[in-house]
């Protein structure tokens, strides 16, 4: 799968962008900045997906991951993080020792991962010698052209759809159940005491504690008719 020409160029651009954005995600002071940098990292990775001929997945990534998850992240940042800035310069990194140890381990990990990738790749190359596949053959002439008219559309979505709904239909259903559970769980987790009390879902001890702390909550006592 050797890339060449513009693909190689874009590979390098988006690859380095992804790494750089990721690095900044971890190092940004402001959480919103972190989220934005993560978004850019994700988009870069989506571009890499495209380069890897996984267009559908790139679209899914942008739509779901960036458009859904990161927006959620931003909402939550708005909910919880606003106070941090007002408190002045807060430490963003943990104590010295933790960071040092983490960096050391990460460096070791880097070394180990690179070594492993190399060894694995060389093994793969023995297993699968490089096929002589010209890049043009990747293009399927039967496919309609794309909107710009400069390239053929690929059959990636079709393939993904076929695979997903044929071989992965059970995991698919399970994934949907998982999402359902996640929805319910997140709703339940994020309820306030007020909401819980009105739904009569509070532990009486906890209610007493809360009442002691906040007498106004008496109004929330559920009416037992």
């Amino acid at each position, binding site marked *: 799968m050797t890339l060449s020409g513009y693909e190689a160029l874009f590979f390098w651009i988006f690859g380095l962008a992804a790494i750089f954005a990721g690095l900044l995600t971890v190092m940004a002071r402001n959480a919103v900045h972190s989220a934005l940098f993560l978004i850019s990292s994700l988009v870069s990775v989506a571009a890499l997906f495209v380069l890897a001929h996984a267009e559908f997945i790139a679209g899914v990534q942008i739509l779901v991951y960036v458009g859904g998850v990161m927006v959620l992240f931003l909402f939550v940042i708005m909910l919880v993080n606003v106070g941090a800035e007002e408190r002045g310069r807060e430490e963003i990194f*943990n104590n010295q020792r*933790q960071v040092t*140890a*983490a960096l050391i*381990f990460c460096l*070791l*990990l880097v070394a*180990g991962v690179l*070594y*492993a990738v190399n*060894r694995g790749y060389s093994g793969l190359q023995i297993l699968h010698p490089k096929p002589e596949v010209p890049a043009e053959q990747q293009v399927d002439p039967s496919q309609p052209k794309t909107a710009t008219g400069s390239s053929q559309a690929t059959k990636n979505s079709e393939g993904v759809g076929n695979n997903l709904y044929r071989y992965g239909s059970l995991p698919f259903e399970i994934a949907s159940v998982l999402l359902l559970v996640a929805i319910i769980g997140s709703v339940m987790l994020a309820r306030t005491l007020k909401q819980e009390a009105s739904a009569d879902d509070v532990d009486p001890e906890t209610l007493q504690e809360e009442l002691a702390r906040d007498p106004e909550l008496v109004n929330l006592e559920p009416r037992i008719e």
Partner: protein
Amino acid sequence: MYKYIWLVPLLPLIGAAINGLLGRKFRFSERLIGGIAVGTVALSFLISVAAVYSYGFGGNAQWPNPYLTSQDGFSFNWIPSGAVAINQGAHIASGEAPRFALLNIEWSYQLDPLSSVFMLIVSGVGLCIFVFATGYMHGETGFYRFFAYMGLFMFAMLVLVMGSNFVMMFVGWEGVGLCSYLLIGYYFDRQEAANASRKAFITNRIGDFGFALAIFGVIATFGSAQYVDVFNQAKTFPIELLGHWGILSWIALGLFVGACGKSAQLPLHVWLPDAMAGPTPVSALIHAATMVTAGLYMVTRTNVIFQHSQTMLLVVALVGAATAIFAATIGITQNDIKKVLAYSTVSQLGFMFMACGVGAFAIGIFHVMTHAFFKALMFLGAGSVIHGMHHEQDMRRMGGLKKYMPYTYWTFLAGWLAICGIIPFSGFWSKDEILWKAASTTQIPLGWLVWLVGTIAATCTAFYMTRLVAMTFWGRERFLEAPAGGEADEAHAAAYDKGLTTHDAMRPSAGDRPRHEPGEHVGPVHEDVAAHVATHGHGGHEHGAHMPHESPPSMWVPLAVLALLATIGGFVGIGPAFRSVTGTEHPGGRLHIVTWLDPIIWNPVTREFNATEGAGHEAPATETAHPAPVEAAATVYGNTGFNLAHSVENTTHSEPATEWIFILISLVVAGIGMLLGGLFYVWRPQLAGIWTQRLRPLYVASYNKYWVDEFYGWAITRRTMDAARAVYSFDAKVVDGIVNGVAWLSRLFSRIVGGIDKYFVDGIVNAIAAFIMRLMSPLFRAAQTGFTQNYALVMVLGLMLAVAIFFASDIATAFR
């Protein structure tokens, strides 16, 4: 008829069982109980007479062979034992392998000359005594119990004399001992009677121990307990002369120890005088006529064994002689009428053993027979006197009863003359023969000493018996002079007059006043005792207003029968001294006691039992055989030293004259004794007191029975109790102390271990735990930071570690 001898012991047993088991439950009347008891004994006697007659004189006479009921099937295999190794005997000396015998102890009766004599004595004299007892024990609350025990005694005694083996004899032996205990202790609420019965049983038991050992020895030596087997084997054994002590001497020793216990010889004689605490018929039957003669029966039955041991014969003779003189000297000073008769019994038993010791076993049995007659007679007479004297037993308060109790008096006289040995009464024949045989014996040395002691004892016998008769029947009527009894009686009388105590007759027992026999009815049956007492009153002379009276016929008829027997019973044993008168050595053929008993007496010269197998040729054979064995025995038993008879004969050069001389001597000494008795107690009564003072030490010694009882009490009884106490204290202090000490040690040890565990071990554990905790706790605590990212870091580290391990080989090659 002799086939039915097995009924003879059985009938009294049945009578005893009926009386004993049903007598109280169904409240038998005295007539019924007495009737059953006397009836069974009478039947038993009749069957015995018929059996003995048919055995000895009938058409199918078995004499001289013994007849065993197992020959006709009237026996059973009582103790089927297994094989017994015979470890003693001639074959051991010769080095052969031990023989084995099948020891089966059967229950069968043996009718032979010896047992027939005893059967007749026991059942006949017993019958007389039973009849007497029905009158004597009248009014007793334990009437049924008395006759139950008496019947049981008859059974045991008959088993003893009729048994065909040693084990049956032992059964009977123990049975009569038991009945003696039961009957002496008949008045069980009296301390004196209880003590006496216990003493009798224990002293008997000491003898039984020796007897049991002897039986073991018999079984071990001969492999059987049956008489016929044992004696047929024993006669082949060599004779053990003086100084040679072999197995037969051991057996004879054990047997003699048993005989001493049962027949009250020195040193086991102590129980017989105390046994007078029982009712008088018991004293008569058991302690005069039958039980005490069981020892004689045993010695005569085993005369084979005794004659094989010269040492034992000597021992028997000397012990008998010593007992005779010992008891005779005590009897002189006793004041209780029954005690005098008791010591007289002991003395006469000594005579019988003297006879056996010198080898005259048949004469010993003859004396048993005559003694049974006259001693039972005198005991019953004494009972009659006591009965007539209203419980009075002290002779010092009797006297002149001749005219009040004529039947008793005249019959008693017969007994008195018999025991003194006056011709032609029965006692003369037997006693004289004993003394002659003692003087002329060639089987043991010191025969002359035995004769001398016997003669002196005979003198004493005559003296004290005359004293008894004189103090009881002749002379002053002393019972009129003093209040009945001494201080105790005065107190009793005074108390009665004050109304503090009841009359003896109205009480079931009068406590422990030895002179009286409580429960004994006052004279003839008084329907209204209270009225009788009221009229007669109490205290002072009025107490003596109870004049002695004659006994009822149930009591004097047996006296008459026994008196008749005491008079003429000796004619079955007319000795060879009278051959000039009778013409033969032993007149009467088989009826002569010596002839009759010959088949069971072993002759050491011929080494066979005397009679021949065939019947009918005994008389001439024994006639001619008689002189020879006397000299031949001398060679068998070696030189036995000075022989009095021979030396007298050498002087007179005539055997009959020698014999007459000895007869004369014994008559003379008897006469001297009687005259002295008359002098001291009839003509010059004050002499008794004077001589008592002059011979004070001797008198005191004799009166106190030579302090034998006190000595036994100190030496044996108290030492045994001391030993018991010592053993007890050892057990309580040492053994229990050890046990408790072990417990204490265990507790101490457990406390120590507990302490070690608590302080040391736990201390170590706690210290280690504390140390580890102090060491490790901060470390582990430090890891719980609560900081999630620390945990994440650790996870990453772990991941890298896992990966490194997974690729360990690769990493190693990379680094190489």
